[in-house]
């Protein structure tokens, strides 16, 4: 019998650390080669860590939410044969040093010896279902009036000594049986007002760890809003003509082509506008005081997924025609939704489009995808009466809410950019006119 140590592999170019977001195994589990053991998240992508060997899990080296450095031990397995682990004495020190380097909360105390180092990870595993169970406890009238609470003598004694009336306690067991955990949860939560029916106070507080994608989003948003003085400019666009064109193209389109949405038109219009104002397509390195003005226009498309916001990127929009843009948007949106988008597909944007689509909303104040300098927000298209100088006529109107890094983009330039896009979208033929 030997020990095999699985270290956090290099999960992508230039990534030095990753956040552990999921354990698929616990200590004592038997795993086969290729069993998925854990999931870690880099800046954008989630990477699954498979087992290279058959074995039994001896030790888990991090808790969910911990940041783990590439190359630091993540899992120890008991395996047939020699194994790869060096002598046990050096291992704990290495392990203890790794989280410390990252500046994150170190899981085991540095002085801990191997068996002691095991305990935090071990403790974390059974703790999860426990808290989940407590959180599930409901409130209100636990049982019909006059019915004796169902609990074993030991539970009754515990409640009596804690001064708790078991009639107030909800039993989570079969037939509403009250267990020790129900009594402890009740003690922790304090007395509840038992109501016979109707509305009940809910004084529960559920602690949800900000981990994984949510943490990435939080960090990104805080960074953007704390560093970038945003200026937001909202303008309305008459998209009646564009919609007619779009409908016509979709009607006549070849079978192998994607159904066009508004997005590819907007992307092409942005490419055209950026041609005239290339400083809008930049990454602002504010630490160095340098604006990296990019030639390639890589448009990030903010997309909502079940786990949160992600931004897949259409690379080189300047080199893609309308159909190509449409196909790429569809492909990336699907990949993002199913969680199969790669790290490369989720990074490298130079400007971003955000759309709440059918949700509606007159205007938004989009947050710039740091370190970009501009973001274009699409609001819902609605039919509105528009005064054409003689009468009101129904027109398809849509607002664009766009934010800019006011440090490097003046309000005037922002307005010029949006007005240019407006002109292009309102007379869509202009989008396709060269020169």
């Amino acid at each position, binding site marked *: 019998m030997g020990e095999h140590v699985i270290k956090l592999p290099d999960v992508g170019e230039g990534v030095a650390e990753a956040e552990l977001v999921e354990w698929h195994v616990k200590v004592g589990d038997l795993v086969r080669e290729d069993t998925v053991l854990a999931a870690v998240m880099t800046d954008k992508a989630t990477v699954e860590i498979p087992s290279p060997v058959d074995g039994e899990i001896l030790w888990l080296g991090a808790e969910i939410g911990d940041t783990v450095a590439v190359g630091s031990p993540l899992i120890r397995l008991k395996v047939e044969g020699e194994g790869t682990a060096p002598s046990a004495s050096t291992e704990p020190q290495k392990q203890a040093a790794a989280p410390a380097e990252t500046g994150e909360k170190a899981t085991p105390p540095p002085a801990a010896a191997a068996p002691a180092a095991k305990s935090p990870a071990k403790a974390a595993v059974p703790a999860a279902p426990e808290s989940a169970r407590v959180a599930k406890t409901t409130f209100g009238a636990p049982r019909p009036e006059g019915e004796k609470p*169902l609990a*074993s*003598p030991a539970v009754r004694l515990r409640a*009596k000594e804690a001064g708790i009336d078991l009639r107030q306690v909800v039993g989570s067991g*079969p*037939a509403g049986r009250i267990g020790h955990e129900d009594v402890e949860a009740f003690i922790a939560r304090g007395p509840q007002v038992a109501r016979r029916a109707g509305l009940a106070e809910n004084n529960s507080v559920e602690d949800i760890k900000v981990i994984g994608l949510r943490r990435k989003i939080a960090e990104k948003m805080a960074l953007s809003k704390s560093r970038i003085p945003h200026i937001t400019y909202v303008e309305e666009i008459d998209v009646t003509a564009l919609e007619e064109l779009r409908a016509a193209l979709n009607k006549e389109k070849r079978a192998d082509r994607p159904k066009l949405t508004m997005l590819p038109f907007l992307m092409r219009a942005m490419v055209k506008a950026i041609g005239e104002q290339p400083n809008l397509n930049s990454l602002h390195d504010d630490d160095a005081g340098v604006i990296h003005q990019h030639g390639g226009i890589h448009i990030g498309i903010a997309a909502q997924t079940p786990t949160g916001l992600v931004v897949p990127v259409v690379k080189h929009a300047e080199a893609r025609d309308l159909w190509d843009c449409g196909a790429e948007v569809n492909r990336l949106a699907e990949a993002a939704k199913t969680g199969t988008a790669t790290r490369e597909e989720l990074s490298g944007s130079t400007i971003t489009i955000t759309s709440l689509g059918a949700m509606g909303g007159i205007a938004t104040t989009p947050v710039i995808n740091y370190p970009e300098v501009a973001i274009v927000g699409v609001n819902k298209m609605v039919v509105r009466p528009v005064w054409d100088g003689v009468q009101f006529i129904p027109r398809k109107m849509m607002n664009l809410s766009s934010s800019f890094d006011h440090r490097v983009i003046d309000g005037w330039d922002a307005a010029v950019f949006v007005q240019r896009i407006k002109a292009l979208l309102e007379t869509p033929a202009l989008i396709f006119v060269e020169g």
Partner: protein
Amino acid sequence: MKEISCKLLVIGAGPGGYICAIRAGQLGVDTVIVEKGKPGGTCLNVGCIPSKALIHAAEEYEQAVHMAAGKSPLGISVEKPLLDLGKTVAWKDGIVGRLNSGVSGLLKKAKVKIVEGTAKFRDGKTVEVETETGLQVIRAETVVIATGSAPVELPFLPFGGPVISSTEALALPKVPEKLTVVGGGYIGLELGIALAKMGSAVTVVEAEARILPQYDAELTRPVAKRLAELGIEALTGAKAKGLASKGGALLVETADGAEKKIAADKILVTVGRKPVMEGWGREEIGLDMAGKFIRIDDQCRTSMRGIFAIGDVTGEPMLAHRAMAQGEMVAEIVAGNKRNWDKRAIPAVCFTDPEIVTAGLSPDEARAQGREVKIGIFPFSANGRAMTMLGEAGFVRVVARADNHLVLGIQAVGRGVSELSTAFGLALEMGARLEDIAGTIHAHPTQGEGFQEAALKTLGHALHI
């Protein structure tokens, strides 16, 4: 005599009183217990223990008689057996004596002071005890009344001469040729069956329509059948009227109104027990009553501050184990711990042949509470262990809520089922559902399997029937 002051005074060293005193002593409470007789109360001296000794002796003797008659299917035959009742009673007294000194020893070990004599309240905090050496005054912060109960006497059949109570029935010099039992409850039947097995010709006179009226007919049917086998005549719906003027017989008014004379050497009156309310100065402290019993709350507190009452003086069921549980609880309360009466079930055992056990609600009681119930019965005739012990009579019955399968009550009748009371009580106290019992491995071959099978049957999938 010098006054004694203590934290806790217990009046009566029956199962309730002595348990209360021992537990209080263990908890470091300065405790005194007063007892006029031998420690152990009715249970140990003239109740549970001696009656079980006699019942066992009677069973053994009856087996031997059965074998001598060549009726045993086991292939065993013996010479005609002889019963020396004097020796039996001496053996029984030996057991009682050992237990008496056991209780005394336990009290001493718990540092409880024992005062022998008759206690009487002077006021709520002071009790005087008439001892052999004079009047002992005891002042106590807390007093527990555990004076127990005594057999009920019929005015037209006063105890004395041929008319005896259960106490005398446990110490008969010889087996009466003809015994009439007035009252077909559990005490009368336990003793009546034992004496019938020892050779008495027994007649049971019961005023209600059937024997053991506190149990449902389904449970008592196997007992009634066995009475007939043992030659015990059960006159139900019959009222005892008194002794025949010439003596040697009991006058009875039968169900159809006719008068009947039943010849009897001994007339055992077992028409119930009454709480002992006289002779300890109840009138001095004026406690609130609940009928003929002392009114108590869920901590066994009486209407007077600092005075508790436990056991038979507090009401039905008058059972030793109820008194013990109350006594233990009161000791905890006196020691400052938070306790109240929260028991779910007080199992009851009737040591007839066959035995009857009940715990929790009967089907009728459950329905009376407005419950929709499911009931499962498993007969011992389908139980291997019961067959090997010639104990096929009887069954286990489980009563559960139809909606969530919570077990509400468990009853059994059969040979040796008293031991099943443990499992029944535990199931109810732990709040078991049918699935819990069905899912517990019951060792094979035992009668206890009947419990699991009854639960399975209630669920609709018994395996052995």
